[in-house]
C-alpha cells in the first residue's frame, strides 16, 4: 500500500525536476527556439551579415534594459530613457556640426572623443535629475521620469526646431571627423557597439554580484526601511541607478546617431517600453528586489531577434506587435508557474526522502 504512492512520487519527481530545469532556463530556451524557428522560416537568417546586423539592433535595447534592470530592482522605473536617447543624439549631432559658440567671436569645436564624453555626461546629468526628483523631492519614480520624458523630448525638438542634423562627417580642419566609428567601426570583426555592450554588461553583472553597491541595490528594492537602518545610503543607491540608466541611454543615443551619421530628435520614442519588456522577460520582478543582468540581456536578444526575424519573414508590423505582446505575457506567466512548481518539486523530493 505504501509502496505504490512512493513509486508514483519518484516518477513524478524526476519528471518534475526535468520540467523545473527547463523552466528555469526558459528565457534561454526561448532564445534558442526563436533562433531555430527563424533559421528555418526566414532565408538568410543565419548568414553572418544578418547575425551581426541583428546583434547591433539588440545591443541598443540591451543597453537600455540593463539600466532599467537596476532601476526596477530598486523598486523604481525609468520612463525617460527613450527621450534621453533622443536628446543625447541631438547633443552629439549639434556638437559635431556647430561646436559651442562662445558668443565672443570664437567657437570651440571638440574632437569626437570629447563629444562622446560630453554626451555621456548629459545623459548622466539627466539621470541625476531623475534621481534628485525621486530622492530629495519624493516624487514617485513613475511620475518623475514621465515628466523628464516630456522635458527631454521637448528639448531635443527645440535644439533643432524639429529638424534632423544631417551628415555628421565633420570637417578635418576642425578635427571633428570620425564620428562614424562607433556605429560602423569594427574590432576583430565585430561591431564596436557589440564590444561596448560586452564591456558594460560584464561590468554591470560584476557590480550586481560582487560589490557592496550591487548588494545595496537589491536591499533597497527588498525593504528600503530595513536597508536604511542597516546603514545603506538609500538615496545614493537610487541616484546611482538613475544615473547609470541615463548613461546607458546616452550610449545608445551616440551609437544611433553614429550609425545613421545623422541625429533626429524623435529618435528613441517608446524605447523605454522595449527596455522594460526585456528586463521583465529576463526575470526582473517589477516589485523590486529580484533580477539579473544576464537574464535581461537574454531577454533583449529574444525580443530583438523576434522582431527582426518577423520582419525578414515579411510578417506585418501589426502582427509583430501582437506577437511581441503575447511573448511578454507568456514569459511572466511561466515565471509564476515556475515558482509554484519549484516548491512542489522540492516538496515531493522531501517527502520521498522521509
Amino acid at each position, binding site marked *: 500500500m505504501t509502496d505504490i504512492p512512493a513509486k508514483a512520487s519518484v516518477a513524478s519527481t524526476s519528471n518534475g525536476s526535468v520540467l523545473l530545469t527547463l523552466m528555469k532556463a526558459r528565457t534561454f530556451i526561448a532564445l534558442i527556439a526563436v533562433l531555430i524557428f527563424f533559421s528555418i522560416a526566414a532565408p538568410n537568417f543565419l548568414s553572418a551579415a544578418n547575425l551581426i546586423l541583428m546583434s547591433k539592433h539588440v545591443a541598443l535595447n540591451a543597453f537600455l534594459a540593463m539600466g532599467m534592470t537596476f532601476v526596477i530592482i530598486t523598486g523604481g522605473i525609468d520612463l525617460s530613457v527613450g527621450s534621453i536617447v533622443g536628446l543625447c543624439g541631438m547633443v552629439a549631432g549639434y556638437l559635431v556640426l556647430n561646436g559651442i559658440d562662445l558668443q565672443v567671436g570664437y567657437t570651440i569645436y571638440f574632437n569626437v572623443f570629447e563629444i562622446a564624453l560630453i554626451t555621456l555626461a548629459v545623459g548622466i546629468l539627466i539621470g541625476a535629475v531623475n534621481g534628485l526628483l525621486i530622492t530629495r523631492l519624493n516624487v514617485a519614480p513613475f511620475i518623475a521620469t514621465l515628466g523628464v520624458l516630456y522635458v527631454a523630448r521637448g528639448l531635443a525638438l527645440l535644439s533643432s526646431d524639429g529638424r534632423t542634423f544631417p551628415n555628421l562627417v565633420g570637417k578635418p580642419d576642425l578635427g571633428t571627423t570620425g564620428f562614424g566609428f562607433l556605429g560602423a567601426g569594427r574590432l576583430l570583426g565585430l561591431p564596436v557597439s557589440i564590444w561596448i555592450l560586452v564591456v558594460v554588461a560584464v561590468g554591470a553583472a560584476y557590480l550586481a554580484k560582487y560589490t*557592496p553597491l550591487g548588494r545595496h541595490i537589491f536591499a533597497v528594492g527588498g525593504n528600503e526601511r*530595513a536597508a536604511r537602518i542597516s546603514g545603506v*545610503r538609500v538615496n545614493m543607491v537610487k541616484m546611482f541607478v538613475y544615473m547609470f540608466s541615463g548613461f546607458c541611454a546616452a550610449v545608445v543615443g551616440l551609437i544611433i546617431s553614429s550609425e545613421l551619421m545623422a541625429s533626429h530628435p524623435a529618435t528613441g520614442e517608446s524605447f523605454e517600453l522595449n527596455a522594460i519588456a526585456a528586463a521583465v522577460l529576463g526575470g526582473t520582478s517589477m516589485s523590486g528586489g529580484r533580477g539579473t543582468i544576464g537574464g535581461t540581456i537574454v531577454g533583449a536578444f529574444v525580443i530583438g531577434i523576434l522582431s527582426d526575424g518577423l520582419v525578414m519573414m515579411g510578417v506585418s508590423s501589426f502582427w509583430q506587435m501582437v506577437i511581441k505582446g503575447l511573448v511578454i505575457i507568456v514569459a511572466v506567466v511561466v515565471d509564476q508557474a515556475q515558482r509554484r512548481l519549484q516548491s512542489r518539486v522540492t516538496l515531493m523530493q522531501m517527502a520521498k526522502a522521509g
Partner: protein
Amino acid sequence: MTAATDHHVLLKLEDVSKVYSGTVAVKRANFEVRKGAVNVLVGENGAGKSTLMKIIAGVEQPTLGRILLEGEEVSFSSSGDAVNRGIGMVFQELNLFGNLSVAENIFATREITNRFRKIDSREQERRAAEFLERLQAGIRPDMLVEDLRIGQQQLVEIAKAVSLDARILIMDEPTSALSAAEVEILFKVIADLKARGVAIVYISHRLEELIRIGDYITVLRDGRITGQERMKNVDTQWIVRQMIGSDAKDFAKPDGHVPGEEIFRAEDICLPRVTGGLAVDHVSLSLRAGEILGIYGLMGAGRSELFDCIMGRHGHATGVIFIAGKKVRERDTTRRIRRGLALIPEDRQREGLVSILSVASNLTLASLSRFVRLFHISGAKEIQAVTQMVRELAIKVAGPAQEVSSLSGGNQQKVVIGKALLTGPKVLLMDEPSRGIDVGAKADVFRTMRKLSRDGLGILFATSDLDEVMALSDRIAVMSNGKLTGMFDRAEATEASLVAASALGHGPVPHMESHAHD
C-alpha cells in the same frame, strides 16, 4: 473551577505532516483542541508551532494527514474556509494593512454595509470600538494602523480575531510585543472567551504565562510532538525538558567584571512628536565600556524613539552624543554605524530584515565593508563570517542561501541580532532583543550579551520584561512618557521601584481617555 470535567475535543489533527522546500516542518503530529479550554503549544524556535497552527487555520495545507472537526474530516483550502467553520487566528507576524484605519482592518473582508452596499464606517467604528474597549487598548478605531506602535498593532490583531466570534481561536505569540499590564487585560479576555466555550490555542515563549492560563499543554520538538499533559500536572522544568531535551540553561550570571571608561554619552536628546509634545524629552545618559544598561519602561515610553535618535534616524532630533569621549558629528545612520553604533530594531519585519534576500545577505548587509577589498566582496570571507554567526547564535537554517522569510519567527530575530553583531559595534542598542525567541535561545542571547560586555562593548538594552531587566543589567534606567524617570544600580533596584518610576508622569493619557468615553 471544575477542572475535573474533561473538556470535549473540538478539533483533532491526525498524523499531520508538512513539508516545505528544504525542511520537514511538522512530522506526523497528533494534536487535540479542547472546547472551553486554553490549549497551550510550546516548542523551540522552528519547532513547527506556527506551521501546525497555519494548517488548522487553512493558511497552509497539510502534506499528509487528516483534520477532524467535531469528528468530521475537513479540508480548508484557504483561511476563508477556516473562518467560515469558526476558526480564527492571531498570526505571529502582523497581518495588517498600514494604510487603512483600525476599524477597516478589523472588518477587512467582512465589511459592514448598508442597503446600498455602501460601507457603513460609522457602524464599523462603533463595533470596533467595543472590541478595543474590551482590550482597553486606548486605540481609536479611526486611527491609521501604520501610526500605531507595534504593541498596539498586536492588540488590533487580537481585536480582529476576537471579533470573528470564532469557536476556535488560535493565538500565535500574541503577547510578544505587549507590556505586562496589557497581558493582564488579554488574559481577562481569554478567560471570558473560555467561559463562553471557545477553544483557545495559545503559543508563547513566556513559560510563566503558559503555566498561568493553560489547561492543556502540548510540546513540539523538531516537528514531532514530544509531550502532552494537563497543565496542572506539569511545571516549568518539565516543559523545558520536553522542549529542548535537557534542563534549561540558566540566565547568564553577572561575572563580576568591572566596567571601564565611559564609552557612550547622550546629552539632552529631544524628539518632537508630530502631534505636538516631545516623544523623547531631554534624555541624558552615559554608558561605560563593558556595562549593560537596561532601559525599562512601558510601551510608548519613548525607548525606541530614543534609540532612533541615537542612530540618527530623525533629522529633527536635537541633542548630542559622544562615543569614547568624542563628539559624534555625523548625523546619518550610515556613518554612525561606522562610528561603532548598532541597533537591533524592535520590528523585525519592517525594519530588521529584507525578506526576499537570503539569510547570508541579510546577516552581512550592515557590515559589507568588512568583506570588501577595494570594491570586491570576498565571497569566502563573507560565507565564513555567516557560518560562524549561524553557529554562534544557533540559527536554524537549511543553508546560508535560504530566503530569510522562510525561517521561523525566532530564527528571523536571531538573524537581526547577528546582523548587528557583525558590524563589530562599540555600543549596541538592543530594542526588545528577546522578542519571540525560545528559552534556550534567550539564554544564548543573554550569554552573548554578557560576553560582549566582557569584551568591552557598551550595551543599551530596552525591554518591558521586569525579570529580564533585573537579571541582566548592571544599571537600570526607567523611562516614562519620553522622560528619564529613574536610574538605579542593580543593587538598589527593586521591582516595585522600577514599576513606580515607569508610571511616573503617566496618568491617564488625555486624548485617548476622552475618546474612549464618548
